[in-house]
């Protein structure tokens, strides 16, 4: 497996949506909401001990930095349907689909963490826990577990502890991040913090009803900051960040996307990392629409100082997943992250000696400088760059078909580092037990 994040250059370019005055006004709007609860000073003071970043540990991959300015990609989301091919109708997800999704995500070097989709079930908590169990079993990457209650969070901690080999080891290398659903109480966040797991608090601005997304952001941010501050108060130094779940009103809403960039700046101003589910295209397949939407989303996020972009592989606004979309989103992410990496300017890159040596109407192909740097150039996996005639001869293959080749190749390759069977069985038991007690409750 390629080293995780090996294709993820550090972003150096920033697209700052808000100038200093605007950021000040947005912060003031948040503080206005907090002041209604007399909480301004307390929140500011408590957040002073928060970490601005940490590392994402995986069971069988190298750690990845998770900090604003070094964007990582998260695959998946809480979809309960899958589309098997480009034109196929969505069908309910099965355990085999979850496994396949996690295996493909595991094989893509662009993906740093996995938020597994889950099977449709009246008991959503049980379904989510079962999916987290599969993600920890099948894949070796960091898992993002969405939790809707203290009980669910506790079960995720139990599973991660079992995989890590004990509570101390989990604290040393936390294998999962708990992403709290909007409205979940501080107790769940505290449990995650006590176990050493990073915790993401959701901001849930409603972008519906033609409300200015910016105003909605200020409103929901106040609530999230309150939770983050409470967590710092009870567990100083706990890893806490802010997450924006999918919530766009249309296939591509430029204003909502701009609000994502504004949210990244706002979160950074409080010294917290930010994750946005920005890739949840409304498209029904990996087509031109999905491409345009996700390219903008990835580029805006890559240049907005964000820590994580989530939603790779989602279609239908997050309702379904597609393995092909996942592979194609990874390509878009790689493309955008390389763009955000900017242009280094120093003596070596300005290459004056080489320019002088090549001179007029010459060629740099045989230069040592070219040999040193030719691998810096981004290389595509799914972009077709063959001559037109060769492309026609080979059956006019599209990016989707190249993605399909990649999916098949990954699924046909045996998993490299499966979780021991007894640990996998333990995860299943934890999920079943937690599901049962959730139903009893």
């Amino acid at each position, binding site marked *: 497996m390629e080293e995780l994040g090996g294709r993820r250059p550090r972003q150096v370019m920033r697209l700052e949506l808000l100038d200093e005055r605007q950021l000040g*006004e947005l912060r003031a709007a948040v503080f206005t909401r907090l002041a209604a609860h007399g909480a301004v000073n307390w929140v500011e003071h408590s957040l002073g001990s928060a970490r601005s970043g940490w590392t994402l540990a995986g069971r069988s991959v190298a750690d990845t930095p998770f900090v604003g300015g070094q964007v990582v990609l998260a695959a998946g989301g809480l979809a309960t349907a899958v589309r098997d091919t480009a*034109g196929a109708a969505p069908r309910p997800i099965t355990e085999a689909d979850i496994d396949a999704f996690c295996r493909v995500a595991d094989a893509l070097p662009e993906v740093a963490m996995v938020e597994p989709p889950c099977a449709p079930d009246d008991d959503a908590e049980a379904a989510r826990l079962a999916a987290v169990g599969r993600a920890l079993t099948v894949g070796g990457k960091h898992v993002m577990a969405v939790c809707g209650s203290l009980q669910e969070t506790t079960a995720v901690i139990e599973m991660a502890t079992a995989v890590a080999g004990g509570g101390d080891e989990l604290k040393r290398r936390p294998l999962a991040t708990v992403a709290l659903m909007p409205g979940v109480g501080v107790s769940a966040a505290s449990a995650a913090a006590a176990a050493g797991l990073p915790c993401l608090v959701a901001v849930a601005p409603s972008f519906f009803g033609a*409300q200015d997304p910016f105003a909605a952001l200020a409103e929901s941010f106040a609530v999230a900051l309150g939770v983050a501050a409470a967590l710092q108060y009870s567990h100083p130094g706990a890893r806490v960040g802010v997450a924006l779940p999918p919530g766009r009103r249309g296939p591509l809403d430029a204003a909502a996307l701009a609000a994502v960039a504004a949210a990244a700046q706002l979160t950074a101003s409080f010294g917290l990392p930010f994750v946005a589910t920005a890739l949840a295209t409304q498209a029904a397949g990996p087509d031109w*629409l999905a491409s345009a939407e996700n390219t903008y989303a990835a580029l805006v996020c890559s240049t907005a100082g964000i820590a994580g972009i989530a939603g790779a592989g989602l279609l239908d606004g997050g309702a379904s997943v597609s393995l092909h979309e996942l592979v194609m989103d990874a390509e878009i992410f790689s493309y955008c992250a390389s763009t955000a990496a900017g*242009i280094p300017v120093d003596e070596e890159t300005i290459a004056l000696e080489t320019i002088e040596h090549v001179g007029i109407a010459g060629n740099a192909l045989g230069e040592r400088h070219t040999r040193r740097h030719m691998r810096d150039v981004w290389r595509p996996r799914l972009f077709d*760059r063959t001559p037109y005639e060769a492309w026609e001869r080979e059956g006019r293959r599209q990016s989707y078909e190249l993605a399909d080749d990649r999916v098949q190749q990954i699924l046909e390759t045996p998993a490299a580092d499966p979780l021991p069977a007894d640990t996998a069985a333990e995860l299943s038991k934890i999920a079943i037990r937690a599901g049962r007690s959730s139903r009893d409750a």
Partner: protein
Amino acid sequence: MSPRINPITPRLRWEVLSSAELERIHEATLHILETVGIHFPSQRALDVLRANGCQVDDARQMVRLPRAVVTEAVAQAPGEYVLAGRDPDCDMLIDGKHCYLSNDGSGVFVQDPRTGQKRPSTKADAAESARFVDALPNVSYYWGPLVTSQDVPPESKALHDAEAVLANTSKHFQAVTCVGEKSARYLVEMAAAIAGGTDELRRRPIISIMQCAVDPLAHDGPNLEANLVAAEYGLASGFMPMPLSCGTGPATLAGNLVVQNAEALSGAVLLQLAYPGAPVFFSGAPSVIDLKTGGYTGGSPEDYLLAAAATQLAHFYGLPMAMGTMATGAKEPDWQAAVDDSLSTFASVMSCADMMNGCGLLNGSKILSYPHLVMETEIYSIVGRMAAGISVDEESLALEVIEKVGPNGTYLSEKHTRRHMKEIWRPTIFDRSPYEVWLRGGKQGALARATEIADEILASYEPAPLAPELLEELGAIVARADAEMAGR
């Protein structure tokens, strides 16, 4: 009535290079101009440069440009001017604050809108493409021709192209196939005929000229001479370098920028020395070689970084930039095309490229597809909205409305919503129908809608006509050019 042209005024800016980095590339460029020099294979150009203090090697047609000559010359170039349309509503103020999209240019094939087959382009296609562009407000000017006339004498092809274009659009025309002094003088004669004389053309320049440079560090003689004619008549002109990293430019992007900058700057210096104060612009389409295929990438992260950085460099000198934008390598208007076009447009707009050329061609600027052109204008529209950013003030923060609506309410019937709901971007071809509706409609996506729009324009759009006597005059000029240049 909708506007004839629709520029973007970006509020957000994307800065690829810091001030110190710009300064460093500028210094490296001056060093190259002063020590290595530039190939100027034109006696007229060599004479102008020598007369102004440059070191000229006549035998090799090489010129070393002292830094003082470069900086003083470029300081004389206007930073702001108007590129006029035959229709004054199509005038473009080039001032470093607006971005204007054109079509792409010099394509050689057409995906025939009637048969769907790929075939070589003709003069009739050049005319039809001008009529098509005239209909679309998001395409502010015509660049090219979009596809060249391949059924006319090659020696006078540029003038046949111009005749086809000028008769079918009242938008500004930036010519890219006009090379050599003779050809340029015929082109000026055609434009002057429409404008009402050369003085009127100087006052309202309805054409401009762009030429390619020869990478690395060289110009082409006929291209230099054509742009000298443009400058003589007060028409804007510029040179487009296209250094490819790993081939005609260093593998590293900063080095590529030095080569690109040296070529663009040297061309602008020549024009300023010959005609001080003539309107000039920078241009560029820098890229990298795909070492796997040995060809042009047709879209890569490096292309967009170079585009944005080259635009910053043009603005560093106070000059406008005409940047190669879109021009995907994809063979069809598909997933790959959307990734390329989205990033490319984003980079050009966010760095505020004054002119962006442009939309309509596939396969690395070779094949014209009208539906693809329409889809690219949708991408342009999205980027335009994003570049406008978010307004933050008392009205947009809407605290009163939030308090009134409270938790779990809806904003749908609020006056604030009515005041602002039309500001929300609306798609033209993006499909937002419910899944079942989309399924019932035969899974028609953006391409189907774009094809409908394209077909409608091709079937029914009529541009503002040129007077019959002007059409006759243009024909007569082209006939003279055929006789003189092609012996026909």
